[in-house]
Protein backbone atom coordinates (compact mmCIF):
# COMPACT_ATOMS: atom_id res chain seq x y z
CA UNK A 1 0.00 0.00 0.00
CA UNK A 2 2.86 2.39 0.82
CA UNK A 3 4.31 1.76 -2.67
CA UNK A 4 1.09 2.82 -4.43
CA UNK A 5 1.18 6.27 -2.83
CA UNK A 6 4.89 6.61 -3.75
CA UNK A 7 4.12 5.78 -7.40
CA UNK A 8 1.25 8.29 -7.52
CA UNK A 9 3.40 11.04 -5.95
CA UNK A 10 6.27 10.32 -8.38
CA UNK A 11 3.95 10.47 -11.41
CA UNK A 12 2.45 13.74 -10.15
CA UNK A 13 5.96 15.22 -9.76
CA UNK A 14 6.92 14.12 -13.29
CA UNK A 15 3.68 15.56 -14.74
CA UNK A 16 3.99 18.92 -12.95
CA UNK A 17 7.67 19.20 -13.92
CA UNK A 18 6.72 18.67 -17.57
CA UNK A 19 3.91 21.21 -17.24
CA UNK A 20 6.27 23.73 -15.60
CA UNK A 21 8.77 23.46 -18.45
CA UNK A 22 6.13 23.39 -21.20
CA UNK A 23 4.58 26.62 -19.96
CA UNK A 24 6.54 29.42 -21.70
CA UNK A 25 4.85 32.46 -20.11
CA UNK A 26 6.57 33.24 -16.75
CA UNK A 27 3.46 34.23 -14.77
CA UNK A 28 1.65 31.01 -15.67
CA UNK A 29 4.85 29.06 -15.06
CA UNK A 30 4.98 30.48 -11.51
CA UNK A 31 1.51 28.99 -10.93
CA UNK A 32 2.64 25.55 -12.07
CA UNK A 33 5.89 25.87 -10.07
CA UNK A 34 3.88 26.48 -6.89
CA UNK A 35 1.84 23.32 -7.59
CA UNK A 36 5.15 21.49 -8.28
CA UNK A 37 6.40 22.67 -4.86
CA UNK A 38 3.26 21.32 -3.19
CA UNK A 39 3.45 17.96 -4.96
CA UNK A 40 7.17 17.69 -4.11
CA UNK A 41 6.31 18.27 -0.45
CA UNK A 42 3.84 15.37 -0.66
CA UNK A 43 6.48 13.15 -2.29
CA UNK A 44 8.96 13.99 0.48
CA UNK A 45 6.34 13.14 3.13
CA UNK A 46 5.70 9.82 1.39
CA UNK A 47 9.45 9.13 1.29
CA UNK A 48 9.46 9.71 5.08
CA UNK A 49 11.35 13.07 4.99
CA UNK A 50 9.12 15.54 6.89
CA UNK A 51 11.90 18.12 7.49
CA UNK A 52 12.60 18.32 3.77
CA UNK A 53 8.88 18.45 3.01
CA UNK A 54 8.48 21.40 5.42
CA UNK A 55 11.30 23.37 3.82
CA UNK A 56 10.03 22.60 0.29
CA UNK A 57 6.57 23.80 1.37
CA UNK A 58 7.93 27.00 2.88
CA UNK A 59 10.21 27.77 -0.08
CA UNK A 60 8.23 26.33 -2.98
CA UNK A 61 4.66 27.43 -2.23
CA UNK A 62 5.20 31.01 -0.95
CA UNK A 63 8.74 32.33 -1.51
CA UNK A 64 9.63 31.29 -5.07
CA UNK A 65 6.26 32.26 -6.65
CA UNK A 66 6.42 35.65 -4.89
CA UNK A 67 9.95 36.29 -6.22
CA UNK A 68 9.01 35.27 -9.78
CA UNK A 69 5.77 37.27 -9.78
CA UNK A 70 7.55 40.40 -8.48
CA UNK A 71 10.17 40.04 -11.23
CA UNK A 72 7.45 39.62 -13.88
CA UNK A 73 5.70 42.74 -12.56
CA UNK A 74 8.92 44.77 -12.62
CA UNK A 75 9.74 43.74 -16.20
CA UNK A 76 6.16 44.52 -17.29
CA UNK A 77 6.24 47.96 -15.61
CA UNK A 78 9.55 48.72 -17.37
CA UNK A 79 8.14 47.74 -20.76
CA UNK A 80 5.06 49.92 -20.11
CA UNK A 81 7.23 52.86 -19.00
CA UNK A 82 9.41 52.51 -22.12
CA UNK A 83 6.31 52.52 -24.41
CA UNK A 84 4.99 55.67 -22.72
CA UNK A 85 8.37 57.37 -23.10
CA UNK A 86 8.64 56.56 -26.82
Amino acid sequence: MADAVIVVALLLVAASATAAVAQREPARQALVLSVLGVVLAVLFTVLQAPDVGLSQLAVGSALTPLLIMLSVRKVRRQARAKDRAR
Partner: protein
Amino acid sequence: MSQRLRLWLLAVGGAGVAALLVAACLDLPAFGGRRHPYGERAVAASLARHTANTIASLNFDQRAYDTLGEISILFAAVLGCLVLLREARDEHRAQPQPAEVALPVRRYALIALPVALLTGLYVIAHGQLSPGGGFQGGVVAATALHLLYLGADYRALERVRPLGVFDVCDALAVSAYAVLGLAGLLAGTAFLANTLLPYGTFNTLSSGGTVPLLNAAVGMEVASAVVLLLAGFLDQAVEIEEERGS
Protein backbone atom coordinates in the same frame (compact mmCIF):
# COMPACT_ATOMS: atom_id res chain seq x y z
CA MET B 1 24.75 28.52 -34.99
CA SER B 2 21.33 28.38 -36.58
CA GLN B 3 18.32 27.44 -34.53
CA ARG B 4 17.96 24.05 -36.22
CA LEU B 5 21.60 23.11 -35.64
CA ARG B 6 21.29 23.97 -31.95
CA LEU B 7 18.17 21.84 -31.61
CA TRP B 8 19.96 18.95 -33.29
CA LEU B 9 22.93 19.31 -30.92
CA LEU B 10 20.54 19.40 -27.96
CA ALA B 11 18.74 16.27 -29.18
CA VAL B 12 21.95 14.28 -29.68
CA GLY B 13 23.50 15.42 -26.39
CA GLY B 14 20.22 14.80 -24.53
CA ALA B 15 19.85 11.31 -25.93
CA GLY B 16 23.43 10.46 -24.92
CA VAL B 17 22.92 11.75 -21.38
CA ALA B 18 19.56 9.96 -21.14
CA ALA B 19 21.12 6.65 -22.19
CA LEU B 20 23.90 7.01 -19.62
CA LEU B 21 21.41 8.00 -16.88
CA VAL B 22 19.15 5.01 -17.58
CA ALA B 23 22.16 2.67 -17.58
CA ALA B 24 23.28 4.15 -14.26
CA CYS B 25 19.78 3.90 -12.76
CA LEU B 26 19.58 0.20 -13.63
CA ASP B 27 22.82 -0.42 -11.73
CA LEU B 28 21.84 1.51 -8.59
CA PRO B 29 20.89 -0.66 -5.60
CA ALA B 30 17.17 -1.44 -5.56
CA PHE B 31 14.89 1.34 -4.27
CA GLY B 32 14.01 0.79 -0.61
CA GLY B 33 17.03 -1.40 0.21
CA ARG B 34 18.06 -2.19 3.81
CA ARG B 35 21.74 -1.21 3.66
CA HIS B 36 22.21 2.33 5.05
CA PRO B 37 25.51 2.09 6.99
CA TYR B 38 26.05 5.84 7.37
CA GLY B 39 22.42 6.38 8.38
CA GLU B 40 22.66 3.99 11.32
CA ARG B 41 25.84 5.65 12.59
CA ALA B 42 24.27 9.11 12.27
CA VAL B 43 21.19 8.01 14.24
CA ALA B 44 23.41 6.44 16.92
CA ALA B 45 25.50 9.64 17.23
CA SER B 46 22.38 11.79 17.40
CA LEU B 47 20.81 9.63 20.13
CA ALA B 48 24.09 9.67 22.04
CA ARG B 49 23.76 13.46 22.20
CA HIS B 50 20.07 13.30 23.26
CA THR B 51 18.89 15.03 20.06
CA ALA B 52 15.49 13.68 19.04
CA ASN B 53 15.51 15.02 15.45
CA THR B 54 18.45 13.26 13.76
CA ILE B 55 18.37 15.67 10.80
CA ALA B 56 18.79 18.66 13.15
CA SER B 57 21.61 16.81 14.90
CA LEU B 58 23.24 16.21 11.51
CA ASN B 59 22.82 19.80 10.38
CA PHE B 60 23.84 21.55 13.59
CA ASP B 61 26.09 19.07 15.35
CA GLN B 62 27.76 16.43 13.18
CA ARG B 63 27.95 18.64 10.03
CA ALA B 64 27.81 22.04 11.74
CA TYR B 65 30.77 23.25 9.68
CA ASP B 66 28.87 22.62 6.42
CA THR B 67 25.90 24.55 7.78
CA LEU B 68 28.26 27.45 8.55
CA GLY B 69 29.23 27.35 4.87
CA GLU B 70 25.58 27.21 3.88
CA ILE B 71 24.43 30.22 5.91
CA SER B 72 27.39 32.23 4.59
CA ILE B 73 26.19 31.29 1.06
CA LEU B 74 22.74 32.57 2.06
CA PHE B 75 24.26 35.75 3.55
CA ALA B 76 26.43 36.42 0.47
CA ALA B 77 23.56 35.73 -1.96
CA VAL B 78 21.22 38.14 -0.14
CA LEU B 79 24.02 40.73 -0.03
CA GLY B 80 24.49 40.27 -3.80
CA CYS B 81 20.75 40.62 -4.41
CA LEU B 82 20.55 43.84 -2.38
CA VAL B 83 23.51 45.33 -4.27
CA LEU B 84 21.93 44.39 -7.61
CA LEU B 85 18.47 45.65 -6.66
CA ARG B 86 19.59 49.04 -5.40
CA GLU B 87 18.02 52.21 -6.75
CA ALA B 88 20.18 53.42 -9.67
CA ARG B 89 21.02 57.09 -10.34
CA ASP B 90 18.51 57.43 -13.14
CA GLU B 91 15.63 56.16 -10.99
CA HIS B 92 13.41 57.70 -8.37
CA ARG B 93 11.15 56.26 -5.71
CA ALA B 94 7.44 56.79 -6.35
CA GLN B 95 5.26 56.69 -3.25
CA PRO B 96 3.18 53.46 -3.38
CA GLN B 97 -0.55 54.29 -3.53
CA PRO B 98 -2.74 52.87 -0.71
CA ALA B 99 -4.53 49.83 -2.13
CA GLU B 100 -8.22 49.24 -1.49
CA VAL B 101 -8.55 45.60 -0.43
CA ALA B 102 -11.77 43.72 0.39
CA LEU B 103 -12.47 43.68 4.14
CA PRO B 104 -12.50 39.87 4.69
CA VAL B 105 -9.12 39.57 2.98
CA ARG B 106 -7.66 42.35 5.13
CA ARG B 107 -9.08 40.84 8.31
CA TYR B 108 -7.70 37.41 7.36
CA ALA B 109 -4.25 38.95 6.79
CA LEU B 110 -4.34 40.67 10.18
CA ILE B 111 -5.33 37.42 11.92
CA ALA B 112 -3.04 35.11 9.94
CA LEU B 113 0.01 37.36 10.52
CA PRO B 114 0.48 36.56 14.25
CA VAL B 115 -0.61 32.93 13.84
CA ALA B 116 1.92 32.33 11.04
CA LEU B 117 4.62 34.20 12.99
CA LEU B 118 3.94 32.04 16.05
CA THR B 119 3.98 28.88 13.91
CA GLY B 120 7.33 29.96 12.45
CA LEU B 121 8.75 30.50 15.94
CA TYR B 122 7.30 27.13 17.02
CA VAL B 123 8.99 25.38 14.08
CA ILE B 124 12.32 27.09 14.94
CA ALA B 125 12.11 26.39 18.68
CA HIS B 126 11.28 22.69 18.21
CA GLY B 127 13.89 22.24 15.52
CA GLN B 128 15.79 19.57 17.40
CA LEU B 129 12.65 17.68 18.51
CA SER B 130 9.89 17.46 15.93
CA PRO B 131 10.26 17.96 12.14
CA GLY B 132 11.35 21.52 11.39
CA GLY B 133 14.33 23.68 12.15
CA GLY B 134 15.93 27.05 11.68
CA PHE B 135 15.57 27.13 7.91
CA GLN B 136 11.90 26.20 7.61
CA GLY B 137 10.81 28.32 10.59
CA GLY B 138 12.80 31.33 9.35
CA VAL B 139 11.13 31.28 5.94
CA VAL B 140 7.65 30.89 7.50
CA ALA B 141 8.22 33.80 9.90
CA ALA B 142 9.46 36.03 7.07
CA THR B 143 6.55 35.09 4.80
CA ALA B 144 4.14 35.83 7.68
CA LEU B 145 5.42 39.42 7.86
CA HIS B 146 4.60 39.91 4.15
CA LEU B 147 0.95 39.08 4.75
CA LEU B 148 0.64 42.81 5.44
CA TYR B 149 1.66 43.57 1.85
CA LEU B 150 -0.70 40.91 0.53
CA GLY B 151 -3.58 41.92 2.80
CA ALA B 152 -3.14 45.68 2.66
CA ASP B 153 -0.54 47.74 0.78
CA TYR B 154 3.21 48.25 0.64
CA ARG B 155 3.13 51.34 2.88
CA ALA B 156 1.61 49.28 5.70
CA LEU B 157 4.41 46.73 5.35
CA GLU B 158 7.08 49.45 5.28
CA ARG B 159 5.79 50.86 8.56
CA VAL B 160 6.10 47.48 10.29
CA ARG B 161 9.41 46.41 8.74
CA PRO B 162 12.38 48.65 9.70
CA LEU B 163 15.06 47.45 7.27
CA GLY B 164 17.97 48.65 9.44
CA VAL B 165 16.91 46.32 12.24
CA PHE B 166 16.77 43.35 9.88
CA ASP B 167 20.20 44.21 8.47
CA VAL B 168 21.65 44.14 11.97
CA CYS B 169 19.76 40.93 12.88
CA ASP B 170 21.09 39.22 9.76
CA ALA B 171 24.72 40.09 10.54
CA LEU B 172 24.27 39.36 14.27
CA ALA B 173 22.82 35.91 13.63
CA VAL B 174 25.61 34.82 11.29
CA SER B 175 28.26 36.07 13.71
CA ALA B 176 26.41 34.42 16.63
CA TYR B 177 26.73 31.11 14.80
CA ALA B 178 30.47 31.67 14.28
CA VAL B 179 30.95 32.86 17.89
CA LEU B 180 29.23 29.70 19.17
CA GLY B 181 31.75 27.76 17.11
CA LEU B 182 34.68 29.74 18.53
CA ALA B 183 33.32 29.12 22.04
CA GLY B 184 33.97 25.44 21.32
CA LEU B 185 37.59 26.34 20.55
CA LEU B 186 37.93 28.42 23.72
CA ALA B 187 36.53 25.53 25.77
CA GLY B 188 39.43 23.43 24.55
CA THR B 189 37.59 21.16 22.13
CA ALA B 190 37.13 21.61 18.38
CA PHE B 191 35.45 24.46 16.43
CA LEU B 192 31.62 24.03 16.50
CA ALA B 193 31.99 20.93 18.69
CA ASN B 194 28.89 20.04 20.69
CA THR B 195 30.72 19.73 24.02
CA LEU B 196 29.94 23.11 25.57
CA LEU B 197 26.57 22.50 27.15
CA PRO B 198 25.17 19.40 28.91
CA TYR B 199 22.98 17.31 26.59
CA GLY B 200 19.92 17.60 28.86
CA THR B 201 17.06 15.09 29.09
CA PHE B 202 15.91 13.48 25.84
CA ASN B 203 12.98 14.99 23.93
CA THR B 204 12.85 18.25 25.92
CA LEU B 205 13.48 21.78 24.67
CA SER B 206 16.88 22.02 26.39
CA SER B 207 18.23 18.73 25.00
CA GLY B 208 21.00 18.46 22.44
CA GLY B 209 23.70 20.78 23.84
CA THR B 210 24.41 23.63 21.41
CA VAL B 211 22.00 22.34 18.73
CA PRO B 212 19.05 24.53 19.87
CA LEU B 213 21.28 27.63 20.05
CA LEU B 214 22.68 27.09 16.55
CA ASN B 215 19.13 26.37 15.40
CA ALA B 216 17.85 29.67 16.80
CA ALA B 217 20.78 31.57 15.24
CA VAL B 218 20.07 30.05 11.82
CA GLY B 219 16.33 30.71 12.24
CA MET B 220 16.95 34.39 12.97
CA GLU B 221 19.43 34.63 10.09
CA VAL B 222 17.12 33.00 7.52
CA ALA B 223 14.12 35.10 8.65
CA SER B 224 15.95 38.43 8.35
CA ALA B 225 17.70 37.34 5.11
CA VAL B 226 14.34 36.49 3.47
CA VAL B 227 12.80 39.79 4.68
CA LEU B 228 15.74 41.73 3.17
CA LEU B 229 15.52 39.72 -0.04
CA LEU B 230 11.79 40.36 -0.45
CA ALA B 231 12.31 44.02 0.49
CA GLY B 232 14.76 44.36 -2.40
CA PHE B 233 12.37 42.75 -4.88
CA LEU B 234 9.32 44.63 -3.56
CA ASP B 235 11.11 47.98 -3.81
CA GLN B 236 11.97 47.23 -7.43
CA ALA B 237 8.50 45.97 -8.32
CA VAL B 238 6.42 48.60 -6.49
CA GLU B 239 8.40 51.76 -5.84
CA ILE B 240 11.42 52.33 -8.05
CA GLU B 241 10.65 53.80 -11.48
CA GLU B 242 12.80 54.92 -14.44
CA GLU B 243 13.47 58.63 -14.64
CA ARG B 244 12.61 59.09 -18.32
CA GLY B 245 9.65 56.73 -18.02
CA SER B 246 6.79 58.07 -15.89
